[in-house]
């Protein structure tokens, strides 16, 4: 596999990015409560820095892994990159179209058929009708759902649901692919298939950012990795070294 990582060409840049979640210490849900507390100056929040001064650059064509404990800020990092959250401080620059592999089938509607959902889901990912028509047959074939494609999606099993979700999200070769612990879709043969598809993206120059708890997968796939801890970058570099730092940290 000949891949070109252009070190002069960034795909994603995070510059001193911080994200602060503001959690009310007590839930204030009504106007009345809010008004009373506001008058009493009693609205208190727990400020929580999910990301704290994080900077790194992912180069074009690179496969970049994020590891860390639950709540270390991995998913928040992905959200900041994919434009879901605007950082509280700092700056995020993204060079190219992002395809987020979201919780598969999040936008599906149970009463619509598989076919209708393919177009709806594609539209949610920002594709046009023409772009979806071009890949429609491929999606149906890849998801192995041809006989059921006109049935309402509520009749699908959870495996079929996930297969369709993956097929739609990965139908186009994106500039940048965001993966949040997603390669556990369907049965073993489908997992193999989806894994191969991602490797194919990689060889076509797609930049990949992935979050995983599977260290084997990180080491096997990634060119570089970063270790996050309490919203800070603890280590960044060769996957083997970063994983070692993560493991030594655990003990």
């Amino acid at each position: 596999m000949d891949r070109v990582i252009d070190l002069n060409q960034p795909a994603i840049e995070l510059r001193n990015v911080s994200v602060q979640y503001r959690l009310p210490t007590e839930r204030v849900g009504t106007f009345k409560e809010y008004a009373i507390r506001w008058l009493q100056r009693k609205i208190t929040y727990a400020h929580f820095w999910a990301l704290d001064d994080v900077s790194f650059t992912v180069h074009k064509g690179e496969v970049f892994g994020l590891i860390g404990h639950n709540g270390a800020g991995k998913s928040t990092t992905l959200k900041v990159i994919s434009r879901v959250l605007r950082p509280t401080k700092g700056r995020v620059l993204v060079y190219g179209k992002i395809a987020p592999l979201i919780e598969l089938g999040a936008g599906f509607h149970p009463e619509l058929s598989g076919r209708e959902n393919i177009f709806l889901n594609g539209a949610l990912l920002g594709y046009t009708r023409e772009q979806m028509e071009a890949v429609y047959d491929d999606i149906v074939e890849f998801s192995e759902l041809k006989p059921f494609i006109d049935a309402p999606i509520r009749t699908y099993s959870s495996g079929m649901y996930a297969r369709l979700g993956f097929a739609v999200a990965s139908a186009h070769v994106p500039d940048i692919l965001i993966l949040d612990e997603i390669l556990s879709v369907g049965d073993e043969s489908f997992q193999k298939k989806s894994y191969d598809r991602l490797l194919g993206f990689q060889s076509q120059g797609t930049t990949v950012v992935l979050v995983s708890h599977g260290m084997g997968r990180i080491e096997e796939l990634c060119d570089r990795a970063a270790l996050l801890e309490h919203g800070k970058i603890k280590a960044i570099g060769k996957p083997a070294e970063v994983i070692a730092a993560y493991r030594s940290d655990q003990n």
Partner: protein
Amino acid sequence: MSVTIKPVYDSARQSNPALTELKELRNYWYLLKQLVRRDILTRYKRSVLGVAWTMLNPLGTMLIMSFVFSNLFHMVGNYSIYLLCGLLVWNFFSQSTNAAMSGLVWGGSLMKQIYVPRTIFGISAIGTALVNMVLSLVPLFLVILVTKSPVYWTVILVPFVILIVAAFSIGVGLTISTLAVYFPDVLEMYQILLMAWMYLSPIMYPEDIIPAQYLGFYRLNPMYWMIKLFRALIYEGRVPLLSEIWPALAYSFGALVFGWIFFASKSDEYAYRI
């Protein structure tokens, strides 16, 4: 050294949220169509008569109300048509603003995972209501034909009035959805408000039952003007006076601009809040 190319997304480059939102909405035009299509298709998916319910619903309400009220208010013209005109405008407004609000709450789970323009759920709710409104013009004209009432040439101006009501609904819908993100209770409060608002609008009763000394207040109601325009075209068959058009236009434009800016100014916070 390296070639500097422009980033597709730069979190620091956002001069005006209201304009960014407008620009992004254009990129997601296909999604807007898909969302409207989904709402229309799924609403009646399991019923036998399907979309026909959109037309049967106002017709049924009209029949019941005509039966109850037609003896109460002695009106010169055809009460059924008078009522149906008011009802269609009102239903459009109340349904679309309600749907905009619940749409944002529904879309919340999606907005936490992928980027879509935040206004799209509100706008698509108006789009759905717009389709329903146009469909329910069919029973209106059916009633006009059955009761052998005149059809005036002024009906060709109806699309303008619908646009005015749509713009007003978008403004109100975006405003209350913004509030609903911060205070979920707004969802319930709005139902009560709508009920009061409906009785304060000349939908099922003639305007002249309002005592003269209250008329000044009564006419502050934006829906009063919207319904008046719609009725002028269909029920009375006259071109509305300028003095009737400008209040409706002002309310509609004002609400749209306010709602859009208010919503967009908070849009970065939704993913944090919902």
